[in-house]
């Protein structure tokens, strides 16, 4: 071990293991995580004969698929041995471990973080029984397509149509324009054979807004696109080039009636539309992913500050005092300013991510009983925390890169790749400005409620108190 780094470790004033346990959520959780990591590393999936940065775009995808499949095999083994739940999938695929093995992202990630959760959250019990089992076993590979070439977050503007035909009891999926093509979903291009598609539902000549439908894209044996399905890859991006993002168009594609996810709204056999208790329920998957995102950002920031801090202990530069050796760059206050705020940010967002996760679970439990009172508050919070965590994480990783000088610019520092992954999150699942405006809409309503003397939900209750200040 480098002498300077060892000296740093010797002078530490607290028990590092104690803090690790707190970060993980307990001694058992640390053990579980370490076991998982050890198992993954034993498979040697992280070792490449040629570093993937030197591969072509096509080769990167092919390697990503190979690794994602081997990773799945490993998780399946882990599940069989420990019989643990969904968290293994998330921890291995979405966390630091996943990006260590699949540095440019996984083409199977959306299968786990969006396809399965959406079926679980928006499918009927029968639909869940049929689809979730197949998806968990990877008998099918799914993804989730909402964004279109012409529209992103504004989901009312989506153009893909699903028109119910009562004579055959089928929906007809159609892309009426080029701008209605689905655009972006990970795994959509050449990996998934099924997809949840958000489309404008038409029945009995009336539009009922967007609803989720499961659509088969490719033959389960040959993997060839089915008739009427136009599918492909959207091309190289700033980062995440292993995630196989795709486009998707429909030419009058017919699917059975029960392929519409009907936990909330329903279409009966005769085409009668039964409304959902709240249109907001459709946003469930997006909220879930945003909550997960906050946690992911902590992992990326932790990685970046670990790299930059250790390097700052090793690196010596300049000679501020004559006849004295070059100091460690960690001794410069400007360097501490760059790094220590990053370390604090990891803890701040980790704690907020846990807090938001608990709130998400409470609110979704309340939804099961028909109580939707706190849904708008959760939506507003998940939006703004997604925006701030991704923006702060991108700034933190970039600051860490700068803290490493020219060496931070090397791909071998892993800071540029990490930046590519983090900055992507500023855009996906709702671009950050749009997210902040969604929160603003809720805040303005809360302000008006406070003005009318109504009580406010906990996270905005301070508005009532402060409102009586000088500006009112």
């Amino acid at each position, binding site marked *: *071990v*480098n002498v300077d*780094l060892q000296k*740093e470790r010797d002078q*530490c*004033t*607290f028990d*590092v293991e*104690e803090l*690790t346990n*707190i*970060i*993980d959520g307990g001694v058992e959780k*640390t053990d579980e995580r*370490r076991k998982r*990591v050890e198992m993954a590393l034993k498979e040697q999936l992280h070792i490449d004969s*040629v*570093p993937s940065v*030197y591969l072509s775009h096509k080769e990167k995808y092919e390697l990503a698929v190979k690794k994602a499949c081997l990773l799945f095999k490993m998780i399946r083994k882990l599940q069989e041995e420990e019989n643990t739940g969904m968290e293994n999938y998330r921890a291995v695929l979405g966390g*630091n471990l996943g990006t*260590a093995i699949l540095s440019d992202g996984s083409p199977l990630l959306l299968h786990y973080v969006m396809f399965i959760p959406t079926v679980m959250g928006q499918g009927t019990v029968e639909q869940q029984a049929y689809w979730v089992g197949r998806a968990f076993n990877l008998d099918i590979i799914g993804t989730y397509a909402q964004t279109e070439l012409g529209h992103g977050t504004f989901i009312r503007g989506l153009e893909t149509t699903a028109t119910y035909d009562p004579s055959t009891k089928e929906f007809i999926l159609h892309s009426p324009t080029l701008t209605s093509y689905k655009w972006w979903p990970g795994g959509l291009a050449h990996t998934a054979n099924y997809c949840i598609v958000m489309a404008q539902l038409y029945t009995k000549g009336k539009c009922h807004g967007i609803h989720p439908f499961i659509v088969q894209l490719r033959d389960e044996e040959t993997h060839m696109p089915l008739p009427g399905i136009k599918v492909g890859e959207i091309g190289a991006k700033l980062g995440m080039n292993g995630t196989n993002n795709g486009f998707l168009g429909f030419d009058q594609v017919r699917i059975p009636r029960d392929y519409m996810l009907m936990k909330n709204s329903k279409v009966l056999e005769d085409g009668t539309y039964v409304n959902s208790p709240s249109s907001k329920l459709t946003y469930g998957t997006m909220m879930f992913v945003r909550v997960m995102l906050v946690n992911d950002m902590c992992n990326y920031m*932790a*990685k970046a*500050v*670990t*790299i930059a801090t*250790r*390097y700052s*202990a*090793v690196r010596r530069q300049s000679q501020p005092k004559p006849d004295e050796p070059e100091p460690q760059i960690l001794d410069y206050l400007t360097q*501490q*300013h760059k790094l*220590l*705020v990053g*370390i604090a940010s990891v*803890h*701040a967002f980790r*704690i*907020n991510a846990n*807090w938001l996760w608990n709130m998400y679970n409470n609110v979704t439990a309340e939804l099961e009983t028909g109580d939707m009172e706190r849904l708008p508050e959760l939506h507003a919070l998940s939006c*703004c*925390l997604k*925006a*701030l965590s991704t923006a702060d994480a991108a700034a933190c990783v970039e600051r860490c890169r700068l803290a*490493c000088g020219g*060496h931070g610019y090397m791909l*071998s520092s*892993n800071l540029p790749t990490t930046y590519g992954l983090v900055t992507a999150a500023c855009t996906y699942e709702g671009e950050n*400005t749009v997210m*902040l405006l969604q*929160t603003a809409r809720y*805040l*303005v309503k809360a*302000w008006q409620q406070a003005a009318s003397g109504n009580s406010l939900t906990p*996270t*905005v209750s*301070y*508005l009532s108190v*402060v409102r009586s200040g000088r*500006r009112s």
Partner: protein
Amino acid sequence: PPWDNTIEGIIAGFERVAAGKLGLCVAQIEKRQKSGMCYEDAWNMTSVQLTAASEAHCRAILLATYHKETAEQAASTSPALRRVLQQLVDLYVVYWALEYVGDLLRFTSISERDIESLQSWYEDLLTQLRPNAVGLVDAFDIKDEILNSALGAYDGRAYERLMEEAMKSPLNAEPVNKTFHTYLKPLMQGKL
């Protein structure tokens, strides 16, 4: 209310900033509507301020939650770790107070002297945390194989690893690249 230069005071200050910004947005929207603008246009014209209000609200929640939950968490930790966790909270809150100093001046009664004191507090915290910087990142417990960085490995052999990684470049597989014969040599000899 008078400015309170404590962590709790700063968090209350952030709430005041968020509420102040939001109040101004609502007032702006109403003013624009009164001047004949429709609500949607008034909203659009105010949207830059609205995103700032939203961000301030989120900052207030972030800081308050971090402060509150850490206090609860730290209660069951060793005194040495508790001190460091508290220093991190203080650093984070004071850092953001300094980042938002313009807004705090606008919406709270913070004075220039308070800001100077915050700046010194921040610099002291950096110095206090400095000896534990490496310990703090070691606690994230990210294995080298996962960190995947020549600069950040646990053993600190940054320069050796940078060189090892450089040697993996396909260009280093041969001493002379074929472009020398195809382009560089003919160019230098005026035969291209």
